[in-house]
């Protein structure tokens, strides 16, 4: 469904991503993991074409994205950046914006319908006409996810969607993401820093080290050895009440 072939990206001649190849399928929730500055955010932006790859291809359902316009890519990939500010507009306005790749110049009744459906799916009916400036961090995060969902994408790319949220909101947001991924048969790739959250909610793991792919696979690749190699950290993984918990022990000296 999503296929990366030897994807490379360089900024001002400095290579940032090198030969990244992997393949992920529909209905999968993938965690993109790696230390700060290893190229996770760059990888997401290169996948959806905000950054132009130096070489290599990205295919969604067998279609190479480098031949497509920004609008056509936006109909296939929804993206949520790391930081999101607020704008003086209602939640409905903010979410409706996600329909832009579909409606062109003027909103159609179908666009309004899709926005309503997504707002209801995420339980945000009460917030619909509130100003986004009045929302809490968790609520705002839902708005941004809703905007990506109304794009009716096949792939959802989320850059650190839960980092600045409190624990309850982290779990809630991840549950919502897992639910929509399964219900809508999407592929969701999420940059995460909390390995316990990653293990609990993701079923695929993409480990990035120094701009290259270290491993990509299911739960099997998340071993204490892989964590040591990628994060430079000793850790053990425990099972508590059926929930995998990563216990960091200390950095590798």
């Amino acid at each position, binding site marked *: 469904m999503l296929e990366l072939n030897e994807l490379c990206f360089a900024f001002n001649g400095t290579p940032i991503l090198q030969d990244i190849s992997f393949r992920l399928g529909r209905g999968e929730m993938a965690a993109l993991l790696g230390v700060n500055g290893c190229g996770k955010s760059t990888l997401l932006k290169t996948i959806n074409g905000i950054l132009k790859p130096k070489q290599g291809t990205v295919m969604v359902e067998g279609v190479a994205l480098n031949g497509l316009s920004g609008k056509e890519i936006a109909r296939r990939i929804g993206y949520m950046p790391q930081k999101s500010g607020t704008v003086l507009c209602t939640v409905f306005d903010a979410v409706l*914006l996600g329909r832009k790749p579909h409606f062109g*110049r003027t909103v159609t009744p179908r666009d309004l319908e899709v926005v309503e459906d997504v*707002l209801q799916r995420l339980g945000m009916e009460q917030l619909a006409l509130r100003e986004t400036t009045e929302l809490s961090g968790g609520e705002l995060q839902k708005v941004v996810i809703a905007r990506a969902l109304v794009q009716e994408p096949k792939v959802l790319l989320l850059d650190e969607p839960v980092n600045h949220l409190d624990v309850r909101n982290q779990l809630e947001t991840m549950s919502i993401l897992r639910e929509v991924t399964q219900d*809508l048969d999407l592929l969701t790739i999420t940059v995460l820093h909390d390995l316990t959250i990653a293990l609990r909610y993701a079923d695929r793991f993409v480990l990035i080290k120094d701009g290259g792919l270290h491993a990509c696979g299911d739960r099997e690749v998340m071993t204490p050895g892989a964590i040591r190699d990628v994060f430079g950290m000793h850790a053990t993984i425990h099972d508590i009440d059926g929930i995998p918990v990563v216990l960091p022990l200390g950095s590798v000296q």
Partner: protein
Amino acid sequence: MISSVNTAGSSPSATSSLADDYLRLLRKKNLFGLTLLALLIFAAGFSLRTGSLALPWSEILRALGDWETTGRTAHVIHQIRLPRTAAAILAGGSLGIAGAVMQNVLKNPLASPFTIGVSQGAAFGAAFAIIFLGAGQTHSSASSAVTIDLPNLVVLCAFVGALLAVIFILMLASLKGVTTEAVILAGVALSAFFGAATMLLQYFADDVQVAASVFWTFGDLGKAGWTENILIGITALVAFAFFLIGRWEHNALLWGDEVAASLGIRVRHLRITAMLFSALAVAVTTAFLGIIGFIGLMAPHLARLFVGNDYRYLLISSALTGALLLLVSDIISRILIPPVILPVGIITSFAGAPLFLYLLTRRRKN
């Protein structure tokens, strides 16, 4: 895909009410536009009545209805008050939309024609024409302290000066890796540069030339005749149409470059074309009328209080607010110390500064 999954699980009545509520909210925003329009028509009527020659409504309406009539009333209305009123509306509207767009594409609430050096570029061009090319080398006359011999040359040079500022800013904005904050700062530097260049010219000029070049910078609606109005109007209309077509692109840009790009918008292209059209509108207005401060900055901020940051409504609201602000300022400039007509630029800056401070404190409270 999403809707097909969802409509099954949600009742149709609930589905329709959410969109209906939203559409109802949007209609309220239209009300603000209509209110502004009504105020503008009222102010325009008042503007036509204001002047040293007292005219009853019946005569004003008769002169407006019949363009063939001649005589004192017809002359005053057709050649003096109506062009002035039209200039206020067109220039105010033009500055209003330019400010609204610049504030978004440069991501700075302080962005305005003033801040990015376009006005100062125009002032330098005018000073260059008056002092260096001798367009204002003229004797004082009894009716006016300063007259300008070759107004077309001054306008042309002012336009070129504004355009130079625009080209510089556009070149900078189109460079990769240059942030929008840097563009604003460059505008400040550019303003200082043009200011210094103007002062240098003035230092070597005689006193009449200095007076003429200083006088030119006072934004004054009295400079506008029908030709000027038509040109200002056409540029404003073209820019407005262009921005209106891209209203959703501007809405997307509010959320940041990355969000806009992920929605398929060519951000750099949008930024450069939007700057080009808004700067052109400002350049034409400034070249004909001189520097009119604060309208381009204030109008969008005031409009935002009522319609929010939604370019579907903000563009027209900023245009109407700008037109209304300039028209009211012009009326004040005419009735404050009769029979003296103050340059409207002085009034807008006087009124603009405290109004802006008020907006800042209000924003903080919100």
